[in-house]
């Protein structure tokens, strides 16, 4: 396999996965159990992403400046800060923590 083949295979596969999700027939999606599960899937996957992107590096669990960023983001969210403030505060807090440590 050449590098170009691998690049194009990965791109095609990633696209087909996205398309597959949008290609499930309406009748299947209308089943109550499927509808409830589909509604909860983004919640589950995004919540999992939050912790994985904050507390892991590859297969290792790590506690670093990102944890401070997420803590600040959580505080901002609980104080009902606007979205941009939450993201900016987390970014600045993480950068400052790295600067200090």
């Amino acid at each position, binding site marked *: 396999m050449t590098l170009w083949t691998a690049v194009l295979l990965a791109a095609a596969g990633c696209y087909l996965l996205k398309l597959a999700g*949008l290609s499930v027939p309406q009748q299947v999606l209308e089943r109550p159990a499927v509808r409830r599960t589909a509604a909860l899937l983004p919640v589950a996957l995004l919540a999992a992403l939050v912790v994985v992107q904050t507390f892991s590096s590859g297969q290792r669990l790590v506690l670093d400046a990102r944890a401070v960023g997420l803590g600040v983001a959580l505080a901002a969210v609980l104080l009902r800060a606007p979205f941009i403030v939450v993201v900016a505060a987390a970014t600045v807090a993480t950068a400052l923590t790295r600067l200090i440590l």
Partner: protein
Amino acid sequence: MPRMTDLDTQTVPTDARRAVIRDAAAIGVATGAYGVSYGAIGIAAGLSVAQTCALSLLAFTGASQFAFVGVVGGGGALVSAVATALLLGTRNAFYGLRLTSLLDPRGLRRLLTAHVVIDETTAMAVGRRTPELARLGFWATAIILFSLWNLGTLIGALAGSALGDPRVYGFDAAAPAAFLALLRPQLASRRAGAVAIAAALIAIALVPLVPVGVPVLLAGAAAVVAGLWRATNATVEENR
């Protein structure tokens, strides 16, 4: 001020729409900065500028792209690079199950919509007060993020590591913070809150045990269990 319901979607005030677009711009800028990092890593891994940019244009799913160049850069087999990218891209298929009902994409639009189904566009669509705002959140994020991610990739690929590591500026904390903020309105429901906590615990417990990308996918089981659990209860009640 009139109360908004799902029925009168045309009455979404301009303010609410502006706020969604502003949020999309914020998430786009933070992700674009990360695109610079991806571009630089792609070149360092041995991909050409064209190959690095082709992945951003055609695969357009950050986690898969970082994984791909990571495996190639680490000297891994190309087959594993593709497999890892696909594993990380699988969660986008699950997002589609939810987005179908929100966006109702048909015909050729479905082919175009599919290309921009990623973490950020999904997070910006779900949990909006009206379907109109959900569609706006999805498409505003899609257009801004696609543009900036590809621009960032090109800049990173050309400038290499000269621009420095975006982690120095804390941009690696932007995505988790954004997802947390976007999840917040949905967690008002006890069921969704429980699913989110269970999913987070499952994922973190699995990180050391299974390959990268799998913890998040298996965390989706929390949603499946919660979805089926109610179904079982409902069936029991119906059978009474």
